[in-house]
Structures are given as C-alpha cells and as structure tokens.
C-alpha cells in the first residue's frame, strides 16, 4: 500500500498524467474496501510526501497536521456510515424472513370447487402487509371468504394481522357464521389491541346448495355484488363497527342469492383509496374496471384490476391492496 502510493505520487509529481489520476481513483476504492479511514489516508500521504520531497517547508508539514485533525471528523462519520450500513443489511434480512413468515399465514392451497370460480390478489405497499385474506371450505361444504385490513401499514400492522389469523384458527369449524365469527374475533381483538388501533373485516360464507351468500362487515370498505342478468354492480352494503372498539358488539348479517355468472368482490381500502394525480378515484371507477375484465376467470380478473390500478398510480402503491372475487359457476 505504502509502496503503491509512493509510486503514484512520484509519477504524478513528475508528469501530472490523467492516467495517474485514474489510478488514484482505483486506489481510493480499494482503500475503502480495506476500511482505511480518511485520517489514515492523510497520514499516509504525509509520510510518503516527506520521503519523496526532501526539505519540505515547515508550513507544508504543519498544514497537514491541521488537515489530519479535520479529517478525524470525516473518519467518524465514515465509520458511522459503515456500521449503519451493516445494521441496515441485518434489518433487511430480518424483514425478509418476517415477510416470508407472514406469507405462510395466508392460505396456501388453491380453492378448487366446481361450484365457484375464485380468485384473489393481495400486494403489500411495502415488504409486509396489514391486509389479510382467508378462504376455506368448511365441514358443510360452505365456502368461507374474508378480507381484513389492519389500521396503518408495515410492520406494526403486519404483527397485528397475525393475531386475526390465530384467532380465526381458534374458532371451531362449525361456527363459521359471518356475524357470530366477527363477534368472536372482536372479543379477541378488543382485549389485545392498543387503544388507537383497530381492524376492519368482512366475512362471507357461500352455500353452494342454496346459492346464498351470507356476509357481515366490521366497518370494512363495502365490496361489490355483480348481477349478470342486468349487468350492474351493487354495493355490498351492511353496517357494523370496526373490531377492537368495544367488547360487546353485535353484527348484522345480510345475504343475497347468486345466479349463475353473478359474483361478489371483497376488497381492502387500498383499492378504493387509490389516488391518481392527487385525486381519489371513485368507487364506480373501481367497479367499471372490474367490469372491463369480467369475461376473464376470477383469478386473472383480480390480477388485471390490480395491474391497471398499479399503473394508474405509477407503480407506487400507497397502501396494501387486496381484491377477492367469488363467482357462481353453475
């Protein structure tokens, strides 16, 4: 290192070539890899300089002492930068592990039932999601579907989301009635959540024999019901307070009949709160967009709607996005 720098400096003092300047750049990169601090670099320069040029004026040597002192500050900043970079890498890898864990909380098997055409797409704004979705075929052959949205986003929301998953798992299979299920979850959430946190959730249960879709909502953004016969979208309106506000809450259960080709859409507010050029899109923009792709299978439909909304906001999701579609086949 000493020798190399000495050669460079000697060359440069002799011919001032561009080539030597280029070598100096390469040299600095190599020194950064070796963790050589700025003040060590200055001190290397002084010793080499003293050796090449005899009888350096006193002022020049003294000035380097001053420079050395100044560089110590830069050196501290440099070392702090390095340690922060390491920490950031560590956090990044922990976050990746957590994101994978979170993925494992979502249903992994595809829902394949002859009676319905099903599709879901869920994309977090960051690495981790505050949105949750669920689907299951219960013991009676009913198809249960859910979308939940934890306030906020990122890690705190994601941690809270796992609570919903475990609370859902603890409810016995025979009790997957929408309103009763939300009442159960509300008790768990209310006990375990910060006073200014809450969760919104919609739960639906489709009975393929009677073709009725039962649903209840805990303050969740209303979904859509598409009626094929009239080619119109209706709001899946039902009222209920968000989970986590008061311990005893009763939820209202509604139902509607699906004819062949009819479908229901459950979504998170990341879908309807899309901002385009600072302006929120309207709910009818969303339903129009869904209508545009209704000829596709449910899964492709959900994906296409996501792609288009993502493009509309320049591929910068502001909030977690979840869209779930269930269509009656026969």
């Amino acid at each position, binding site marked *: 290192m000493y020798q190399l720098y000495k050669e460079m400096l000697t060359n440069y003092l002799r011919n001032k070539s561009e080539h030597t300047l280029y070598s100096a750049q390469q040299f600095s990169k190599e020194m950064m890899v070796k963790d050589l601090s700025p003040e060590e670099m200055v001190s290397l320069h002084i010793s080499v300089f003293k050796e090449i040029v005899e009888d350096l004026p006193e002022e020049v040597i003294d000035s380097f002492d001053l420079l050395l002192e100044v560089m110590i500050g830069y050196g501290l900043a440099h070392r702090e930068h390095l340690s922060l970079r390491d920490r950031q890498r560590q956090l990044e890898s922990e976050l990746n592990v957590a994101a994978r864990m979170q993925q494992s909380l979502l249903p992994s098997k595809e829902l394949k039932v002859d009676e319905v055409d099903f599709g879901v797409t869920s994309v977090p704004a960051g690495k981790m999601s505050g949105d949750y979705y669920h689907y299951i075929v219960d013991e009676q052959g009913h198809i249960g579907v859910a979308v939940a949205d934890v306030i906020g*986003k990122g890690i705190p929301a994601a941690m809270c989301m796992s609570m919903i998953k475990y609370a859902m798992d603890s409810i016995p299979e025979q009790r997957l009635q929408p309103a009763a299920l939300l009442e159960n979850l509300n008790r768990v959430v209310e006990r375990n959540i910060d006073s200014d946190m809450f969760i*919104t959730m919609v739960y639906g249960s489709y009975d393929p024999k009677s073709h009725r879709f039962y649903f209840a909502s805990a303050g969740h953004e209303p979904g859509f019901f598409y009626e094929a016969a009239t080619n119109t979208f209706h709001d899946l309106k039902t009222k209920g307070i968000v989970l986590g506000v008061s311990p005893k809450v009763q939820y209202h259960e509604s139902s509607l009949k699906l004819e062949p080709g009819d479908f229901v859409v459950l979504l998170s507010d990341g879908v309807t709160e899309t901002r385009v050029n600072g302006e*929120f899109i309207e709910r009818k923009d969303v339903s129009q967009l869904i209508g545009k792709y209704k000829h596709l299978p449910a899964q492709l439909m959900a994906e296409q709607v996501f792609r288009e909304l993502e493009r509309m906001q320049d591929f910068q999701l502001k909030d977690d996005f979840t869209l779930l579609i269930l269509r009656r086949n026969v």
Partner: protein
Amino acid sequence: MNLQVDVREEEQEKHVLLNGEVDVYTASLLKEKLIPLAEKPNAAIIVNLSNVNYIDSTGVGIFIGALKASDKSNSSLKLIGANARVKRLFEITGLDEVMDIDSDQREEV
C-alpha cells in the same frame, strides 16, 4: 400535507380546531394534543373538522383512542363539521354509532 391543531379551553369545554389532513404522518401530533384533553375528568371536547379534507385509518384510530379515554374519564367527545368524505369514513367504520358526529355545524369555524 400538514396538520395544525389549535386548542381553546373554556372551563370544561375544550375546543379543538384542526386544519389540514389527519393521516399516518400527522396522527401522532393530534394524539399528543387530544388524548391528554380526553383524559381530563368531566371535560366536553368538541373537535372541529371543518378544515379537514382527509382522514385516513390511522387518523380514525386517534379518535377511537380519544373516545376510549373520554369514556374512562367521564368526559364527552364530539366531532363537528366533517365533510362528506370524512363523514363517509366514520359511517363505513360504524363509528358514527358510538361517536357523536354532527356534520351540520360546518359553518361554525
């Protein structure tokens, strides 16, 4: 977007005037000012939302926190002057059933 929180106290009545957006970035400021008021016993808190054009779910969370705190301290919380979009948010979340929300008082700023 910013939020300005002005508090005017008249004995038990606490008037809170908000200006701006209550979202994930400004919610902590509102929390700092609103929760201590809600924890005071027998207070009547009136939050004026006439100059608030947008509230996100984090913002709604602060109002839920304030509601819980005011219940505990035997105080009351009332929101006035909400615009249509803000009102819709309180309706969808079902909070209009447990919170006193009067959107007709929009002119009183």
